Each structure stands twice: as structure tokens, then as C-alpha cells.
């Protein structure tokens, strides 16, 4: 009994009271910022090093849907114009809002016009999700699991991952979507009753990431099912996922 009390006491309270206003360590690679400085000597160091073709130049721009947050562009830029901030709120439902241009100062948000009306009404208090890994590396799964743990406690918002797609309101996909799992993914999405939401979690799911050019990848299913939320990151931090879903379901701006 005393041992048990000791365990409780030593664990203390670990949950994050407000998941929307956490300050992550400054080294956490969240939303990048690109300063409007001129690049010298035809430099394109960032574009050349980028392992996922997320960067282009003139003007320098970075696609969060492709970025694996390796930080190499930040390190190599001789002008030091690229800087990753710890801002973890980087989800959107609009690919164009994930593009960051030099000199631009804005928060990453969802495009309100693209949020279907029923989402807030039906899923604003309770949202049950089914995960399908379609060629992921298990990194995204580790973080999605963590969303429900004592620290992040996503369950308090009524957001939960469940086993059966029949009991769910939506599907979360991780991984670049590979040929061998397309059929299982299709069956799962169809098994979820209407209306349903569809989330792409992690750079692999959002754009194929570093696997985009693989012969094993087949993303044609995305021609049929359109994502309601894009969650950048490799893997996305639990706070990124949770804040994105809260924004989608109308519980934060």
C-alpha cells in the first residue's frame, strides 16, 4: 500500500493542462521561418541538400508537406535565413497554406472554407478514429499512441483511436501508401460509416515524403478520398496532431 502511494506521489501530475499553448524546447523543429535576405553567389545550398525536395529558390520557399524536418537547410544556409521555430501548430487542410515563402510571417492555419459543415456539428465533442499504417516506419504510430498517454491525454477531448472502423468517425493514414496495403486501406475507409473524416498524418502520408519516388508506393486512392487534415512532421509531435484535430473540429481557431 505504502509503495503504491509512493509511486503515485513520485509520478506527480504529468498532464499538459493546455495543449494549445505549450512552449516546446527551442530546439524542437516546428514551423520554419525564412527571412527576406538576398542569397549571394547563386547559392542554392538548401535546395541541393534537401532530402525530400521540399525547398525551392527565387524566392526561397519551403513545403511543409514534404519537409522531414532534418534541419539541414537551416545549418547549411550561409545567410542564416532559414530558422526552425518550436511552433508545433503546423496542420492545415489546404496544401497551399503549408507553403512558407521568404519574408512571410504568418501562423499555419486551416482554411475555414474547406472545412465541411457537418464536421464541427458532428465531431465537435466526440471523435473516434481508426489508424491505418500504409507503409509507415512506426515513428508516426509511436507518436499517435503517445497522444493518448498521461502527458497529452487526448481522450479528454473525446478524441480516441478505436479498433473497429465500424465504430469510428474517420481514418488516419500514416506512411506513403504502398501498393501492398492499398486494399486494406480502401476496405477500412469504406467500413467507416458516413459522414467520415480522413486525415493524413506525417510527411510520408501527406506527400510520400522520402518514399515518393518508390515503385512500391501507390497513392491513387487519394484521387477518390480527399484529406480533411494534413499533419506535417516526421513524425508529427503529439501536440501537432492534437492541435490540428482540435482546429478541424472547431475547438480552436
Amino acid at each position, binding site marked *: 500500500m505504502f509503495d503504491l502511494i509512493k509511486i503515485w506521489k*513520485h509520478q506527480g501530475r504529468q498532464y499538459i493542462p493546455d495543449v494549445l499553448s505549450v512552449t516546446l524546447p527551442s530546439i524542437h523543429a516546428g514551423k520554419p521561418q525564412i527571412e527576406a535576405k538576398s542569397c549571394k553567389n547563386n547559392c542554392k545550398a538548401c535546395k541541393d541538400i534537401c*532530402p525530400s525536395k521540399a525547398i525551392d529558390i527565387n524566392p526561397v520557399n519551403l513545403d511543409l508537406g514534404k519537409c522531414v524536418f532534418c534541419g539541414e537547410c537551416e545549418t547549411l544556409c550561409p545567410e542564416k535565413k532559414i530558422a526552425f521555430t518550436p511552433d508545433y501548430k503546423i496542420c492545415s487542410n489546404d496544401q497551399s497554406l503549408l507553403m512558407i515563402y521568404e519574408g512571410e510571417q504568418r501562423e499555419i492555419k486551416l482554411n475555414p472554407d474547406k472545412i465541411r459543415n457537418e464536421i464541427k456539428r458532428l465531431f465537435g465533442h466526440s471523435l473516434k478514429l481508426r489508424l491505418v499504417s500504409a*507503409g509507415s516506419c*512506426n*515513428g508516426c504510430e509511436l507518436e499517435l499512441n503517445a497522444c493518448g498517454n498521461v502527458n497529452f491525454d487526448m481522450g479528454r477531448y473525446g478524441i480516441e483511436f478505436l479498433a473497429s472502423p465500424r465504430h469510428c468517425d474517420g481514418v488516419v493514414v500514416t506512411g506513403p501508401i504502398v501498393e*501492398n496495403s492499398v486494399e486494406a486501406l480502401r476496405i477500412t475507409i469504406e467500413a467507416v460509416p458516413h459522414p467520415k473524416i480522413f486525415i493524413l498524418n506525417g510527411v510520408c502520408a501527406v506527400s510520400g515524403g*522520402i518514399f515518393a519516388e518508390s*515503385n512500391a508506393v501507390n497513392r491513387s486512392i487519394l484521387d477518390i478520398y480527399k484529406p480533411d487534415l494534413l499533419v506535417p512532421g516526421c513524425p508529427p509531435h503529439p501536440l501537432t496532431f492534437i492541435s490540428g484535430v482540435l482546429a478541424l473540429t472547431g475547438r480552436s481557431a
Partner: protein
Amino acid sequence: MNHVILKNSQSTAISNIPLLDYSLFYEHVLNLLKDNACHCVNYYAYKENGEQLRMICCICNDNTSGIYVFSHIYNLTSKPALESLTAVNTGMHVYEREITENFGVEFINHPWNKPVRFPTNGADKLKTADNYPFYSIKSHELHEVGVGPIHAGIIEPGHFRFICNGEKVLHLEIHLGYQHRAVEELFINKKSTFEKTILAESIAGDSVAANATIYAMLMESLGNIIISRPTSISRTIAIELERAAIHTGDLSALCTDVAYQLGSSVFQGLRTTLINTFLKWSGNRFARRLIRAGANPYPLNNELKKLILNNLESFETRFNEMADYMFNNPGVLARFEGTGILTKEQAQLINAVGMVARTCDIPRDIRSSHPYYNFNEISHKAICLDSGDVQARAMLRRLEVTQSLEYIRTLLATCDEEAATYTKEIKLMPDAFAIALTEGWRGEHCHCAVTDNKGNLKHYKIKDPSLHNWMALALVVRKNDISDFPVCNKSFDLSYCGYDL
């Protein structure tokens, strides 16, 4: 000589690898494997050109730290059938299955030549992930249970087909491949050293440190780069911190599977302390960004060292009291003890590696048998248990966490500061072969690389410890209740993507 002897992370000219006729190759493999200190860490084939395959076999001797490497050239035009090694040595089964699947090589008398992962460029295009040839028994008394590919939880896909007699499992067959991303091919298609580093980090997102270090070891070996002591220490620490973190997370998951809520929550929270240590070190909770071939972008300075030590201290007291409490809880023990037993004979038979081998009293551990980085000076001793059940696999995790923390502290104390260094393109030795092994938290990872005459990568081979250990899961559920499957599965926590590649 029938083989060349290499050390861990050594490279050699490809011409130094002896070419044997298949009959001699076959004899040589079986002869070497007669010694219990020897096990096969890789056996694979790649296309040398349109007409021939080179089959390379790498056998480790745990007593001498040597790796015996030898090869055979196979003619793709005449396509002779080869005598199966698996028929004599079961542990070779998955290597031969892979060679058949990739290139259509026939192995005579192979008892179980089933598909491995349905690769995109497999030899038989008619074989797809949706038509796996399951073993079945015709009987009115028995029934089959299919589980997956999508499982009840946040987990990767795989299909498990049980044949049951009532509640008892008679047989389990595991069909994987759903996660196949053609990673090995991408190692060739991607050109820069750095792109491949990122790829190595994503082979398995729970073993980032293990796979990234092993890739770095290969590139540094082929590029003739010697890393500094602080760089080496920082990688050794990363490997051990990853072990402690994932083991702790697995203890949580094991508690979840036996409905022990306290352990489940507490160990999850404890894991956060460890992965957030990585976050403050490199900016990612799973050790991404930390390990770079030929460089050390996040060297350990005094501030970081202090942070790590503090976190370990806060972690360890809480970890120990929770673990003591849990391993004395009769409800937990009743579910763990005697469940899912793998015998030592079975472990030897299937070439089990890593923690699975060590819970069956086989001291197989690359850190002690083929030490790399700073494991030599630590003089690591593998922890072994002998009951081979879920309890052993849980307890081993607990003991290994403590051991890892101790290693991290020892190494931190002797780690000098150094300036950060960044990735550069590494020029590789042409026409060479290199092999490297690390002991990740699951067990031994082995990567092999071959370069062409210009020093470009020509072939890259990855072996995850799960390649061997999935068979252990299939064996241990026999004669167990099917309801014990989840806890058995979790007790191994094998990699789907590491296997499917």
C-alpha cells in the same frame, strides 16, 4: 581459404571474397554452423548483371569476433535448382525464401518456401499480398481465425492466421509485407550520402539510432573516415538511450495487454522522460537528426551532459519503484509467467537473435561478440534469462534498462566536448564490400553494402532482427490460449516495416 574474415564495420575489395561452387558453398555454410558460436547474420543475393546473381553469405563467430564472408555466383540463364540449406539448418529458411521470392531461384527440399514480403520487383508477378498461400488443415473439429492485416490498435499491419482447437492455438502463420516500401532499392536510387542517412533513419522509426549508426559505420568504413572519440561516445549513448526508452514503452504496453492500468500509465510517462531527452539533444523525440555519417552535429557539451544525467536520475528512481511493484503483482505475474514459452532448442533452431535469444539463455549480443564504438571499453556482458516466456521478455527489458543507464553514465563521464561537424558527401572505395552490425534494442541489425567501379552504391542489404524473430512468435503461441496472443505479440514487439523494408 574458403572465406575472408572481416571485423565488424570492415570493408574489403569485392575480389577478396572467395567464390565457391555451390556444392562447396553449401558444405562450408553447414560446416561453419556446426559450431554453436557461429550464426548466419546475412545471406542474400543481388544481380551482378543481367545473367548472374552473386550470393553472399556472412557468418559471425561470437568467440573470435570474426565474420566469415564468402560467395557463390548463380547463373540466371541456366537457373539450376540448388540444394536447400534450410532442409538441414532451419535458421536459414528466411534467407532462402527471400532469394526465391526476389529472383525465382529454386531450392530443392526447402520445407517452407513461402513468400516473405511481396516486393515490387519480385520474380513472380502473380504473387500479391492478397493471395498468400496459407497452410491449412482439413478437419471438422478445428477452426481458423484470421487477424489483420489491420489490427485493433495503433499498430502496423500484418496478417495472422491461427488454426485452433477450441481456445487452444495449434498453429500460427504470419503473413507480412503490407509495409513494403522498397527501401533497399531507394538506397541505390537516392544519390547523396545525406539523402541515404535520412532513409536509414526511416527504416524503422523505433530503431532510428540503431539503423542510422549502422549506415554511418558502413559509409565511414567505405570512405575511410575515422570518427572522433566524442562522436563515437555520442552514438553509443544514443543506442543505449533508445534501448532504455523503447524497453520502457514496451513494459507499458505489456501492462496494457494484461489490463494493469497503473503500470501502463506510469511506464508511458517514464518513457516520455527518456524520449524528451532526445528532443532536447537533437530536436526530435526519436533520435532523428542526431547521427550523421562522418559527422556529429549535436556534440555533448556540459549542459547536455547535465541534462541527461538529471533526466536519468529522475527516471531511475521512479522506474525502479514501479518495476519492483509490478514484478511483485500476482495478477501481472499470473499472466506473464509460463505464457508463450520459447525453448532454447527452438531459439537455436530458428536462429533467434537479440533479446529473444537472451531470454532463452543464449548470450547472443553484438555488443559483446563483435564490439563497435565504445562497447569494447565498457566490456559489455549480455544479460541472460532462461525461462523464455513473456515474464522473461518483460524482466529482461527491466534489467537491460538499468544496464543501459549505467553505460550512459560511464560514457558521459569520459566524453570530451568537441565542435559540431556536419554531413559531407563521402567518397566510397570502389568495387568493395562492407558489413556492419549493431545491437539495437530488438537485437542484431546487419547492413551490407557493395560499391561499383566508380564508388557508387551498387547494392544495399538490410537485415532487421525481426527477420528471424517473427518465427519465434509463431512458435510460442502453440498450445497457448488464443486470448494470450496479444500479450505474446507485445512481448516480442517485432518490427513490421523493418521486416517488410
